[in-house]
């Protein structure tokens, strides 16, 4: 049991120390409208004592008005926020929920299950360490389940829980559970998950959510919450090479010049040799400044200000990396897009691309293939509509530093912004392979210089380096 202990029980100092030294896990829940996803989150909030008396009173009132559980309290209403959504009886956007135990804090991205909202799930998955994929035990795997598993794998989530819900409605059948688990394992084999953890549960009754299910003697594994308390977090980001996209140059006076940013991955210490991408200039770290004093080293997830040993040029949009792990510098790359705009995307369209802290003009030179969201297989596409997933080639108006998304989520992910509406039109993941072309990975400026610039190079640019 890991519900909050009372502070009196073990003293304020150790109580504060325990809570102030807790880690955080971000996870996403995926499921179709009827898989009981909102009920599961409501159950987690309720059983970890995050629900207050006045909320329970409001819940009882709302359960009578909007609930789908008859006279019973409908835990799903705890998480169905906006009025419009309540009236439709479904969740239509990404909502974030918070709860904590004595061991960890949790941030849950609650995303919609129905098909047209790929964008929302991609957003929720982009920062999640773990995905909880819900399946209705009566239905087994559905098209939605396959879609969600594919999507979270595309977004780089390595650990998934297969939460087989509504087990009470199939009499806690072990055979049914194993059948679903086997089918999921077979489907997910090519998706590259590090771990798939199947758990039979009932969100409505609470079995195997926070507490073990008394009704399930054959299940000897951990309840969902215990798994979430123990699963390792941010291991990929910690192991990846050092990356700090420079947000802002802090220069309050002539004695101090520091480069502020959030460390996307890896680790750094004073004395480390670095490269400023994309210029390629080199230096070493002199200080890691923070308002709490200089640090002996810093890691992924910290916001710091780096002071370099040399007066070299770096500005917003630069990326500071360790000398042993330079980034790819290119004005062209292949990427997988999650198209979110209501307008269609046609080849030749130019948008703004925000990659880390740099924003450049990006032209979609080629739409290669659309990805079938269920099978993951490529299908031909001439244009993209909202919620399409597709592989494209982008050509930028200048060279930037990039990583492959598979190697680094923060430096390999980007957004496309519509220049007229200023809306976010797409999420993008940079592919590991450079675009196939005779002049691949060569910055436009260098190409233009070689070809003498002018009309020919402009044509090349327009046609994506033909």
């Amino acid at each position: 049991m890991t519900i909050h202990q009372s502070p009196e029980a073990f003293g304020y100092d150790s109580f504060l120390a325990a809570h102030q030294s807790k880690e955080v896990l971000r996870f996403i829940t995926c499921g179709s409208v009827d898989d009981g996803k909102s009920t599961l989150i409501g159950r987690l909030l309720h059983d970890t004592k995050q629900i207050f008396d006045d909320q329970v009173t409001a819940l009882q009132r709302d359960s009578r008005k909007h609930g789908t559980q008859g006279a019973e309290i409908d835990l799903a209403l705890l998480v169905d926020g906006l009025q419009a959504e309540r009236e439709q009886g479904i969740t239509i956007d990404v909502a974030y929920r918070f709860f904590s135990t004595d061991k960890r804090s949790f941030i849950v991205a609650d995303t919609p299950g129905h098909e047209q909202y790929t964008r929302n799930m991609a957003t929720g998955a982009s920062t999640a360490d773990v995905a909880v994929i819900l399946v209705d035990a009566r239905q087994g795997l559905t098209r939605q389940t396959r879609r969600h598993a594919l999507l979270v794998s595309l977004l780089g989530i390595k650990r998934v829980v297969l939460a087989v819900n509504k087990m009470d409605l199939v009499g806690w059948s072990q055979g049914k559970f194993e059948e679903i688990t086997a089918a999921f394992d077979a489907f997910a084999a090519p998706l590259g998950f590090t771990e798939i953890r199947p758990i039979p549960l009932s969100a409505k009754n609470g079995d195997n959510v926070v507490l073990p299910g008394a009704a399930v003697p054959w299940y000897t594994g951990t309840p969902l919450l215990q798994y979430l308390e123990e699963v390792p977090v941010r291991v990929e980001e910690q192991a990846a090479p050092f990356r700090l996209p420079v947000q802002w140059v802090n220069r309050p006076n002539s004695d101090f010049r520091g480069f502020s940013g959030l460390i996307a991955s890896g680790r750094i210490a004073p004395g480390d040799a670095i490269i400023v991408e994309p210029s390629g200039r080199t230096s070493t770290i002199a200080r890691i400044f923070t308002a709490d004093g200089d640090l002996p080293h810093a890691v992924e997830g910290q916001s710091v200000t780096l002071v370099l040993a040399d007066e070299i040029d770096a500005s917003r949009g630069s990326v500071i990396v360790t000398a042993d792990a330079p980034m790819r510098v290119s004005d062209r790359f292949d990427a997988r897009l999650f198209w979110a705009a209501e307008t269609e995307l046609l080849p030749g369209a130019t948008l703004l691309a925000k990659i880390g802290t740099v924003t450049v003009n990006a032209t979609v030179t080629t739409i290669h293939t659309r990805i079938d969201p269920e099978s993951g297989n490529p299908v031909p596409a001439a244009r993209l509509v909202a919620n399409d997933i597709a592989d494209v080639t982008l050509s930028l108006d200048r060279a930037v530093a990039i990583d492959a998304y598979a190697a680094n989520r923060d430096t390999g992910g980007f957004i496309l912004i519509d220049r007229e509406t200023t809306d976010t039109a797409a999420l993008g993941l940079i592919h590991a392979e450079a675009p196939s072309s005779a002049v691949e990975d060569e910055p436009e400026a260098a190409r233009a210089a070689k070809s003498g610039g002018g009309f020919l190079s402009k044509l090349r640019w327009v046609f994506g380096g033909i």
Partner: protein
Amino acid sequence: MSAATALAATLPERLTHLQRLEAESIHIMRETVAETENPVMLYSIGKDSSVLLHLALKAFAPGRLPFPLMHIDTTWKFKEMIAFRDQRAKELGLDLIVHTNQEGLARGIGPISHGSEVHTDVMKTQGLRQALDKYRFDAAFGGARRDEEASRAKERIFSLRTAQHRWDPKRQRAEPWHLYNLKKKRGESLRVFPISNWTELDVWLYIEQEQIPIVPLYFAKPRPVVERDGQLILVDDDRLPLNPGETPQNLSVRFRTLGDYPLTGAVESDAATLPEIIGETLAARTSERQGRVIDKDGSGAMERKKQEGYF
């Protein structure tokens, strides 16, 4: 340095939840300063504003804050709030703007005479819009958190507002990874919520860890209160009319949120230190905003107010 900070220092590879929250908030503030022209921090004097200010000082150290603070003064704040505001501004050398809706003041708008809904709309919502227009701020930091209220759980960290300051829940931008789209059309502005992902408990734990100064009203002590509609209201000055036969009682109370005193209920408590407050917060059986009369102006009240331009 608290025990937790000392412990964290020995385990540098495992950042704590509070360290990650702090880093995320600082990142959001730096993005805003880098990508907008004229940002401002809305300073409401409460504990969330205190955290916001502390984070901002950290984000831009060793330099000064690259934006002013602005307080929308409805003229009905607790006296101790105003004293605290002025003291902090002086100590830290802050660039502080105080704006009051003069037209509303001239009309004599107040929470007692006009009720919470009209008062909040005129003195707070319209006051804020006036000030944002007057100074042409294109981004305003606020201390709202997603755990406060259901409609806020879905709001983005960077929330786009129309030239009329309206929020459109259907036109919200995706915020994947740490990538925020700060582009906007002429006249549009951004509301920025750097502590979106903090909970009430996180705020208290951080205040304790960092020893951040907060208004003394958050700590319990005997104060003169009257009970109105189930809320304990502090008799902060002689503008609160007492009903016939009503006498203020001296009860040991504290406040979980601070706002206009006639609209902010106290809770009975003996928690006079931060650890005691944190203990009560964990054991709390009523949610934080329950002390706010404004949230109960009907179901979906906050969502409607936001669409109208309330922060």
